[in-house]
């Protein structure tokens, strides 16, 4: 389990070339799917680790209680576990989203079509011009910063734990 976290010891830049080659093999270059898959791969180990930690804390008795109450495995998952995992799900969702939102290297590498590039890369492109349009850069930068702030603010209450308090005697 913790081995998955070791993948973070390998710098993203180091994986950029293999990732590029892999996407090339699958014919995904210049497709938004390439970036989506790459970012999912990068976010997965940490997300799995967080979910594992959170699900380990769910008391086993809830499983048995729900079974006795007549819940099928699917109902158990949907009605008991999913709501209890919500804070962790929101947390890793936010983490993955912001990670992808801020990504530059892979987005720059995997998408080269002007219409496909992400906002982060586009911002960089402003600087690549001989005469940088600073007013455009600043405005776009401000707009670029708004969604993460909004997302964080919206899901703030989920970020705090303690939803499982009161289930079993601790």
């Amino acid at each position, binding site marked *: 389990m913790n081995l998955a976290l070791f993948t973070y010891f390998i710098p993203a830049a180091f994986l950029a070339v293999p990732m590029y080659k892999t996407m090339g093999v699958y014919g995904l270059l210049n497709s938004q799917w390439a970036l989506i898959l790459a970012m999912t791969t990068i976010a997965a180990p940490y997300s799995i680790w967080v979910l594992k930690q959170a699900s380990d804390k769910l008391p086993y008795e809830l499983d048995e209680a729900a079974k*006795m109450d007549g819940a099928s495995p699917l109902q158990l998952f949907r009605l008991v576990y999913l709501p209890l995992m919500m804070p962790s799900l929101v947390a890793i969702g936010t983490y993955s989203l912001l990670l992808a939102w801020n990504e530059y290297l892979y987005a720059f590498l995997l998408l080269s079509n002007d219409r496909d590039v992400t906002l982060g890369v586009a911002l960089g492109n402003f600087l690549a011009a001989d005469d940088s349009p600073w007013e455009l850069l600043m405005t776009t930068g401000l707009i670029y910063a708004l969604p993460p702030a909004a997302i964080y603010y919206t899901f703030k209450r989920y970020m705090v734990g303690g939803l499982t308090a009161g*289930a079993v005697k601790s």
Partner: protein
Amino acid sequence: MATVSFQNIEKSFGHTKVIQGISFDIREGEFMVLVGPSGCGKSTLLRMLAGLEEITGGTIAIDDKVVNDIESKDRDIAMVFQSYALYPHMTVGENMAFSLKLRRADPKMMADRVAHASKILNLDPYLERFPRELSGGQRQRVAMGRAIVRDPKVFLFDEPLSNIDAKLRVAMRAEIKALHQRLKTTTVYVTHDQVEAMTMADRIVVMHDGRIEQIGAPLELYDHPDNLFVAQFIGSPAMNVMNGKVRRDGGAAHVEVAGGVRWPLVHGPGAEGQAVAYGIRPGDLRLASPDAEGAVAAEIVVVEPTGAETELLIQAGDDQLILVTHGRPKVNPGERIGLTIDPAKVHVFDQGTGARLAA
């Protein structure tokens, strides 16, 4: 209401056999308590009845219908867990209604049942609260409410009071008993606390090492324990037990224990010279003056007044005994006293097998 029947139940975890062929019946509407030290298999037995544990051998029947291969949810039983196991993201009302909701019960009936249960358990003011906002006792009541709304054939309780502080435990004990008297649902209750067993049960099953030591009404177990284990397990403080040999030579029969003390024997169980365990309940020992006739010489070691009762730790020969008296005897540590007993209240067991010797 239902009957429950265990027939030759066995349970193994890997190569370890934890339940060794247990058979007994629970009558309709009975409050049956399974009691024993930890690891005796009582919880496993309950979990097999609940359907949370596979049955290795034998059959369990509810209302004469074998349930071995029936899923928990179709056995029509409800269970209260030691840790309450409330759904933390649901309110008290939702917790109680959950099982009915899963069965797609009629909303009107669902509301009625929850209202009924919350009234019985005085949970009305808390229906909208979450478990985390309740005290331990209230949470345990919600757990019971969850069982009540289902109106099951059998209630199962798995050490429901172990997580509650001592004072509340006594109150909840009475509450559960009152609840049973009101609903008259067949109940199986597991505990390691013999006081809980004694106070609540219609009948008690005393278990030890995966076997049944004795089944009977609380006072029956107290007055006529079948063996040394039951004698020492039931009753608080525990029975005083001294090892000695039966002597019948000349004069009254008695048991001579280490240190040369002679304890009287009236009905005369046991053969001459037989090694026996001589048991006497702390409440059956009487204080007397040291030179009273037939009294055993002893010395007070510790005096523990608790108000209504006084507990005395007494040294008699090589043995230390506990005496409980309702009075407030004026004795001091180190004082020489005499002990008398009613020989009819003596319990004599074989030292080797632990079996009670016919009196």
